């Protein structure tokens, strides 16, 4: 059978159609009438224009149920022409601790200030304390009953492989419980005379901005827990000298994302009129699913350390700016001392920052001091092993340092 329909040659409809197709292709002869009319000043319109005038589609402004987010472009009220370099909660410095030192004009001193060192060595603990701390680690890391979907686990060798989704305690909650329980234990040991002079607050925000060698640095961080005290921490006695590391060929602001939308005001979570407003210790959690390098590579040890320093610096700087007595050369009359502890629940990094100057330029004579030791692990593993909660490699060092930090005044 034929695939095409039989053509009815005598079909009148077909002929009409063909006729219209042919006629439609016919180009009208230019009679010169239009040109003549134009010469006489008469406007010529095509029939198309008269019959189907072009209509602009009318845009309807829909208000919607919720406010539209402000567009983040030049029209934003906080848009600045010069970009600032941001240090936030989710980025680390590529150069790690050396870069952080250069950025904050800080010299590194390995080891804690003398009074803390002494406190770590001299403090006597009851015998049961190790057992107690191990129990509270287990109760915060394993025994809490929260069950939420945890971040996806990816195998590096088999990136397309979908592992079963793990449910458990979220990273943030795990750390919150651990720190709360450790502090509760420390406060019990410290006694009322110390604890009334401290206050604990969760989830505080610090915000400040500083100029370093024509670059604007923006700090916008959150502290997961802040211990504030009635009296500021004493200035650390002793003279410390050192040089800033050389980053060449790197610039000190490398890997800090540029931002055009920012405000230059300073925010410190407690008003200065309140008695217990001095920063004492700041806790920050390190969650590797949130904090990472710009290009997704693993956070190295030195980057981890650098983050601790910058967090401490942001707290001290925002406090110094809040107090408001910063002279023009940036050197503070009364240095501000802040202790900082960064943890991922297992690894603890302790550091003490003394902010001497807010002048970050490379030729500044005064330097800030950063006292720290390499991080310590509270334990090497804490998990269910064949159905039993198990903690391995418990190290009391972290608890001792934490206790010394808390009692430092």
């Amino acid at each position, binding site marked *: 059978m034929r695939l095409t329909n039989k053509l009815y040659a005598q079909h009148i409809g077909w002929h009409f159609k063909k006729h219209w197709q042919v006629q439609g292709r016919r180009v009208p002869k230019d009679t010169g009438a239009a040109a003549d009319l134009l010469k006489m000043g008469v406007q010529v319109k095509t029939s198309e224009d008269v019959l189907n005038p072009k209509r602009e589609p009318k845009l309807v402004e*829909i*208000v*919607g*149920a919720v406010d539209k987010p402000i567009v983040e472009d030049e029209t934003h009220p906080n848009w600045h022409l010069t970009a600032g370099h941001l240090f936030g909660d989710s980025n680390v410095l590529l150069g790690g601790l050396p870069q952080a030192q250069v950025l904050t004009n800080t010299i590194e001193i390995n080891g804690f200030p003398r009074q803390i060192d002494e406190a770590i060595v001299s403090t006597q603990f009851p015998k049961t304390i190790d057992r107690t701390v191990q129990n509270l680690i287990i109760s915060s890391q394993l025994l809490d009953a929260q069950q939420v979907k945890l971040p996806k686990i990816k195998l590096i060798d088999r990136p397309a492989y979908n592992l079963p989704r793990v449910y458990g305690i979220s990273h943030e909650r795990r750390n919150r419980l651990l720190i709360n329980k450790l502090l509760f234990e420390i406060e019990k040991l410290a006694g009322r005379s110390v604890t009334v002079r401290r206050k604990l607050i969760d989830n505080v925000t610090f915000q400040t901005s500083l100029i370093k060698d024509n670059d604007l640095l923006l700090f916008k961080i959150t502290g997961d827990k802040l211990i504030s005290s009635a009296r500021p921490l004493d200035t650390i006695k002793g003279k410390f000298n050192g040089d800033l590391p050389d980053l060449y060929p790197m610039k000190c602001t490398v890997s800090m994302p540029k931002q055009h939308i920012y405000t230059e005001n300073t925010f410190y979570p407690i008003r200065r009129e309140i008695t217990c407003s001095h920063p004492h210790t700041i806790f920050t959690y390190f969650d590797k699913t949130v904090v990472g390098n710009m290009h997704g590579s693993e956070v190295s040890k030195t980057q981890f350390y650098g983050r601790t320093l910058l967090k401490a610096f942001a707290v001290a700087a925002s406090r110094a700016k809040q107090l408001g007595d910063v002279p023009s050369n940036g050197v503070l009359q009364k240095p501000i001392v802040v202790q900082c502890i960064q943890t991922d629940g297992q690894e603890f990094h302790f550091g003490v920052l003394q902010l001497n100057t807010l002048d970050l330029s490379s030729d500044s004579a005064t330097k800030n001091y950063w006292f720290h030791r390499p991080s310590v692990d509270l334990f090497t593993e804490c998990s269910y092993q064949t159905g039993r909660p198990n903690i391995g490699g418990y190290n009391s060092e972290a608890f001792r340092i934490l206790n010394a930090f808390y009692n430092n005044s």
Partner: protein
Amino acid sequence: MSTRWYPVYQRGNPQLRVFLPNFWMKLVRPTEDQPANVVTFAVSTQMTKHDVKNYLEKIYKLPVVDVRTRIALGDTKRDQVHGYITKNDDVKLAYVTMPKNEAFTFPDIFANKAEKQEQDEKSMDESKQGFRKFLDRNKKRPGTPGWYSI
């Protein structure tokens, strides 16, 4: 019924007042047992909880505490002749809670239904009786009309 459509309100629109909107409410007997202070209505699907509440409060002056609504799926039915399926429209059911000391009992509209039916049957019986009597009387003279009598 209104000649205007009731437009969907979005934030920022001028408040539009539609007089005589296409709103209706029908008191229905609940299928499951309910507390005495809950009344069930079938309402037009466009009505919101606020509409139901205002309707009852403003027009009937009823004390309304809370309104919960749901949309019930209409029943399907099979055509007896051709076998195709038809479906009734979905309807919004509003469960109106009144203060807990109030009580509502669904009116028994057909309270004297049996009585009426009895009456009907009685009159039917009487007329049947009459017809039978008439047949009886005319048994002997088939084909003669009814009026042909003494």
